[in-house]
């Protein structure tokens, strides 16, 4: 008997058919990856395995058997026994997935006592034991901490510990590393791998990141619009995909090991008057938040320059100061020390020449104003009035690949990628020469990501724009950048031509970052994992 048997599963929320006629099996101890873009139904499948759709109004058809339990027909009691006891789930966002009011150890103990007749003390001891197993240092003491006192990686470890506590046969992990930095992601994936070897539990991994799947599973099931597109061993699906959609998906995935395609020479550089084509220059930028003993230096002595028609990539993990740096370049934030020069002249405050594209295209557009009005704002701020504004906005919308007739539509009527295009159009409206993009594509699916990156590249070439591309995703940055700055703890640890850094990183931190990026080749992934394990052994 298989560990998981899904036959003809369909899930509908009202008129939306999230999953349609999906069938797959997972054997004991095996690992299956459900891969797909947002809206493909992969998380819905994960929830269906634990019967989490019951009572939510979703219509579930077909049969789901997990560890001998028929999830559709099971009683509430049987279902509670299955949840956590036989199949445990690890969720995406480790901060919101734990109760903020209770100690981490108490929460694990509570779950343990649901499935085992143990005393409070024994359950607490078990919690410390599993926390120790997943690598929480000083587990006995840290088990008394509340979730907000843990870092993102530690919280995810705590959630895995909760899953581990009841020794389930199956671990369902729904985007377990999406909210984490790349080095932490590698640690969590390695931990999952080690636990699987040790306990022999099966793994169902839901992810949008093909690289994460390549690292962690034996088989992949590619989903799109609720249906299975392709299913097979991870090596063959990722190595020689049979379906057109899989091929397109894989082609969109940015590779950290591939240099960006040689761009046609930027045409407009010649008429440049300023020296070496440097448009924007930062010298000794520093920013301190807070005062006295609470003072925190977010950016520390950063100097860099951006040339006309060039893309400067800025990479770093969360908290490295990249966003603070971006805001100072645009003038949204006053530096505590150092300064920004535009064409060699010191500037302060926001100016039309340097504009910003924000990360979240949902919250950075006013939901109560039409997109046309949002794009028109910078024009009006410059004093333009009358029908000329509308004409210019139409032009801008068209320039970023949107239908100018959509002037009067509201942000919620657009997809994520389209909204980011609106954000870019708004930034272009002021007529900038430098565009600072702060994580412009991290909220988007890979295929959309590729399109937006392509648009930015086009704008750079055709308008001679200088780009500052800030992102945590090293692969995306590689696809865009001419030069690269690697940030850590507020400082630039490495700065130079991008390809050179990617080929042979000069700083050990950069090397560590690059080694942590998931690769698409499962064989290589295993090799990398072994390499990462080595320093821990010695």
């Amino acid at each position, binding site marked *: 008997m298989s560990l998981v048997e899904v036959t003809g599963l369909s899930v509908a929320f009202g008129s939306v058919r999230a999953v349609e006629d999906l069938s797959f099996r997972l054997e004991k101890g095996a690992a299956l990856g459900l891969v797909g873009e947002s809206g493909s139904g992969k998380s819905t499948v994960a929830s269906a395995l634990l019967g*989490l759709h019951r009572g939510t109004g979703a219509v579930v058809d077909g049969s789901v058997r997990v560890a001998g339990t028929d999830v559709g027909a099971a009683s509430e009691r049987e279902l*509670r026994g299955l949840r956590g*006891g036989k199949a445990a789930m690890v969720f995406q966002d480790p901060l919101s*997935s*734990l*109760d903020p*009011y209770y100690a981490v150890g108490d929460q694990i103990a*509570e779950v343990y006592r649901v499935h085992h007749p143990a005393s409070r003390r024994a359950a607490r001891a078990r919690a410390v034991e599993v926390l120790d197993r997943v690598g929480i240092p000083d587990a006995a003491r840290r088990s008394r901490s509340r979730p*907000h006192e843990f870092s993102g990686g530690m919280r995810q470890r705590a*959630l895995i510990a909760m899953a581990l506590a009841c020794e389930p046969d199956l671990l369902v992990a729904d985007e377990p590393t999406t909210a984490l930095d790349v080095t932490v992601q590698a640690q969590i994936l390695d931990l999952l791998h080690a636990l699987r070897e040790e306990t022999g539990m099966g793994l169902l991994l839901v992810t949008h990141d093909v690289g994460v799947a390549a690292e962690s599973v034996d088989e992949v099931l590619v989903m799109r619009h609720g249906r299975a597109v392709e299913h097979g061993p991870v090596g063959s699906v990722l190595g020689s995909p049979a379906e057109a959609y899989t091929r397109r998906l894989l082609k969109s995935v940015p590779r950290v090991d591939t240099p960006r395609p040689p761009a046609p020479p930027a045409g407009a550089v010649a008429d440049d008057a300023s020296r070496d084509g440097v448009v924007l220059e930062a010298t000794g930028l520093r920013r301190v938040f807070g005062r006295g003993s609470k003072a925190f230096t977010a950016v520390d002595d950063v100097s860099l320059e951006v040339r006309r028609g060039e893309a400067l990539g800025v990479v770093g993990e969360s908290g490295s100061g990249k966003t603070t740096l971006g805001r100072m370049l645009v003038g949204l934030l006053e530096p505590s020390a150092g300064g920004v020069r535009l064409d060699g002249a010191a500037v302060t405050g926001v100016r039309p020449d340097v504009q910003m594209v924000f990360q979240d295209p949902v919250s950075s557009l006013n939901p109560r104003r039409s997109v046309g009005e949002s794009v028109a704002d910078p024009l009006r701020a410059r004093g333009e009035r009358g029908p000329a504004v509308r004409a210019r906005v139409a032009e801008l919308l068209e320039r970023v690949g949107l239908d100018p007739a959509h002037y009067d539509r509201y942000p919620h009527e657009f997809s994520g990628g389209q909204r980011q295009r609106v954000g870019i159009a708004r930034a272009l409206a002021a007529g900038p020469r430098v565009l600072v993009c702060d994580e412009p594509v991290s909220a988007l699916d890979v295929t959309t990501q590729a399109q937006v990156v392509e648009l930015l590249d086009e704008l750079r070439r055709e308008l001679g724009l200088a780009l500052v591309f800030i992102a945590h995703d090293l692969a995306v940055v590689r696809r865009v950048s001419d030069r690269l700055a690697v940030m850590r703890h507020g400082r630039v640890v490495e700065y130079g031509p991008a390809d050179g850094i990617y080929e042979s990183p000069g700083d050990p931190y950069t090397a560590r970052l690059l080694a942590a990026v998931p690769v698409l080749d499962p064989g290589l992934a295993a090799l990398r994992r072994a390499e990462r394990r080595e320093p821990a052994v010695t």
Partner: protein
Amino acid sequence: MSALHGFLGFTLRRTLGAVVTLLAISVIVYVVFYAAPGDVAQITCGQRCSPAQVRQVTEQLRLDDPLYVRYLHFLQGLFTGHDYSTGTSVEHCPAPCLGLSYQSDQQVMQLILAKLPVTGSLALGAMVLWLLLGVGTGVLAAWRRGRLEERILTGVTLAGWATPVFVIGLLLMIVVCGQLQLLPFPQYVPFTEDPEQWAWNLLLPWLSLALIEAAKYARLTRSAMLETLAEDHVRTFRAYGVGERKIVGRHALRGAVGPLIALNANDLGSLFGGAVLTESLFGLPGIGRELVHAVNVVDLPVVVGMVLLTGFFVVLANALADVLFAVADRRTVLS
């Protein structure tokens, strides 16, 4: 160690904030009441006073002094106390001195202290009842969400909220004391005299206040719990087989504690300043009734004193709530 330091610092900051707020309130209250038009001397002296007598009263009450001088005098009384001459002897009004009543020449502080036990008994007893009724109903409504029980409970609490206190109070008196004759009509008996009679006599006032307040608490508890129930961490515990009763009683209720503390502090604080309607309806000699009387006879020192007192209790209750809130949710101190 650092957590303790943070907590003490937090408490200190809140206390300081409370003092500043109270001083601001005192300025506003003083200006509003004393700058208001109306011949205070004439009213205080009575209709039949001669102009000479009115003149004398004006001088005695220092009504001719500029407003800021009178305020500073008042402030001085608050911090150092005053000596008042009553003609034959000198009376000392000790440190937090709110002045003398125009009508009875009694010290306002004494007047308030005499009424405070009545209002306090009413407020505290009602609070226990409304917390039991309100939070209980709210938990039940959240647990039975989407079912008939929830709709009935929501309807009942809404009706309670919408009914004025004098309607509920009168109905209770007519039915319980008049028709059924289960209880005598309420009459205040001090707790120190006879605790049992104290409770029986206050039962109806407590109930009428609690029935109205409970609606607010039920609705707040329910909505805060439903909000928590929609959060991701509740999904985690569901996915681990934790039963619904535990999820509602342990995780969802915990999320409602913060807002409940905040609301309760506010209500209790303002009730201490006098439950005007309830006290008048049941004939309880509390601060609310005294305040109405003082307003009627333009006894400004009493009015100002009582309004300040209300402010004091609201600020105190809120400062206390902030501290309790920080204890309940440790993330507050850190941010």
